[in-house]
């Protein structure tokens, strides 16, 4: 049958190429669109969503102050966590087994204990140490003395909890990043007469950044959402502010929507920022053609989590094995 039609066809005329049709995809797409439309309709028309209340509070002063506090907590906790975490990672790789072991214990404790428990613990620090004194060790004279309740305000408790917890995660990320750098790099720097600290700062860390930045970006986004946990110790961040308002007005759902909208906006902004920072640290190591859709999460999963490793392996100089 096919042969006879081919035979009757003019041999010199170009053939038309037809890709395989996928009717299932069209049906699937239509079903999803239909369901989405229904969801939007119900959300828009259900009066109990109280969209007028949402728009009333979305840019209200109290909510914006809460938002600013959330941002501030995120930034300060991330900066403290990253600085401390990087230091811990370097110490973790120290040849001194006591130092490296203690850092291991730190990482274990602060990753193992739930953050909520840690926050409550710091909040109640005054119960453990009623006053905090700075004195000459082994019972020497007292230099400074603070009542703990004054020193450990809810803000300090929140920042302590968030950044100490974060440092444990960052330490592991940075450690993995440092270990991912080809040992030949360190050797080449050493052979050029660069001392250990200079080698770490100029050669190893900049290359480790490539493995460190994507997970740290994720950590920033995670931290931004995690700050909502400190609402439990009455820090007036975004969620706590929303809660305070609905405790008074009973407009629970609209205010939770207000908070959610802001969290979505922040996450989207941070995701875009993350991809531009990643590009910066991929200097000298990237493929020449860039994927224009890198900021989109699905594309990111494919372009940054798995392939960079293979990009590096196939295109960089061979690794030194010894």
């Amino acid at each position, binding site marked *: 049958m096919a042969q006879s039609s081919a035979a009757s066809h003019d041999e010199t005329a170009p053939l038309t190429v037809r890709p395989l049709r996928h009717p299932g995809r069209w049906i699937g797409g239509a079903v999803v669109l239909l369901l989405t439309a229904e969801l939007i309709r119900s959300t828009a028309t259900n009066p109990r969503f109280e969209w007028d209340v949402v728009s009333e509070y979305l840019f209200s002063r109290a909510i914006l102050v809460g938002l600013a506090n959330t941002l501030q907590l995120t930034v300060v906790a991330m900066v403290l966590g990253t600085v401390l975490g990087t230091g811990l990672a370097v110490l973790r790789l120290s040849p001194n087994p006591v130092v490296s072991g203690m850092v291991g214990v730190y990482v274990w404790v602060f990753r193992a204990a739930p953050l909520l428990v840690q926050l409550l613990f710091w909040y109640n620090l005054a119960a453990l140490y009623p006053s905090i004194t700075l004195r000459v060790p082994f019972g020497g004279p007292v230099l400074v003395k603070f009542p703990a309740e004054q020193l450990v305000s809810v803000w300090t408790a929140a920042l302590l909890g968030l950044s100490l917890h974060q440092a444990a995660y960052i330490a592991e990320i940075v450690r993995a990043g440092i270990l991912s750098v080809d040992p030949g790099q360190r050797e080449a720097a050493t*052979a050029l007469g*660069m001392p250990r600290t200079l080698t770490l700062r*100029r050669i190893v860390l900049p*290359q480790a950044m490539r493995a460190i930045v994507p997970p740290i970006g994720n950590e920033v986004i995670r931290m931004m959402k995690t700050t909502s946990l400190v609402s439990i110790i009455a820090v007036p961040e975004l969620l706590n502010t929303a809660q305070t308002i609905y405790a008074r007005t009973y407009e629970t759902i609209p205010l939770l929507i207000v908070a959610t909208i802001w969290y979505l906006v922040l996450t989207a902004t941070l995701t875009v920022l993350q991809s531009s920072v990643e590009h910066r640290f991929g*200097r*000298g*190591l990237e493929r020449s053609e860039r994927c224009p859709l890198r900021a989109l999460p699905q594309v990111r999963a494919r372009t940054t989590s798995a392939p960079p490793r293979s990009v590096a392996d196939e295109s960089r*100089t*061979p690794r030194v094995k010894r």
Partner: protein
Amino acid sequence: MRPLVHAVGVRKAFGLHEVLKGVDLSVEAGQVLCLIGPSGSGKSTMLRCINHLETIDGGELTVDGLHVGYERRGDVLREIPDREAARRRAEIGMVFQHFNLFPHMTVLENLVEAPVRVKKEKPAAAHDRARELLNRVGLADKGEAFPRQLSGGQQQRVAIARALAMEPKLMLFDEPTSALDPELVGDVLGVMEDLARTGITMIVVTHEMGFARAAADMVVFMSEGRIVEQGPPKSILSNPTQERTRAFLARVL
């Protein structure tokens, strides 16, 4: 006059495996010495001991009269702090089998990094000399390129220029052409032969017997952690006296 590199009874073990079993070696200033031998004979380890990338377990090793990673106090060789060892290493250039260029820096940045950061040279002066060196290795137009945009042979020539940028008094080459495609080997060897003619002292671990014949003043054959035979390339490569040298050369030539 004391030789530039002087090794007496150097020993080195990795765990229980003894890699160097008492190596004596003398290299005069201006000499080009080729270290040859089967893999596992300890020649790369010997080279790495010379600039203290590896510690030694016994014997004595000096470069220009100084122990690179140690200080002699009476009968004891005491390892010196990293910073001091780094200062002494800065006078010894090294070229690796896998180039080890810094991939996050351009070629020029690779060349000026150590002179500016370690020797505290003025960036402008360091850049001028870096360009001159790139010109010398035939890569004048590649200064702004990143290492991974270059071929293996080009990367190795950049690595040679990077080592020369520190104005070393001794250059160590650890199998510099072993990771290269065969058609790129010639360019790198050409640069090394030019360098040999400038009178800089070179120690080259290599399997390129042609290079040894053309450029070396002295060839040293190592096997199982010991020096078996040494002498001018003509006599070692053409009329070896030892059975092991003959067997090795029969396999590689």
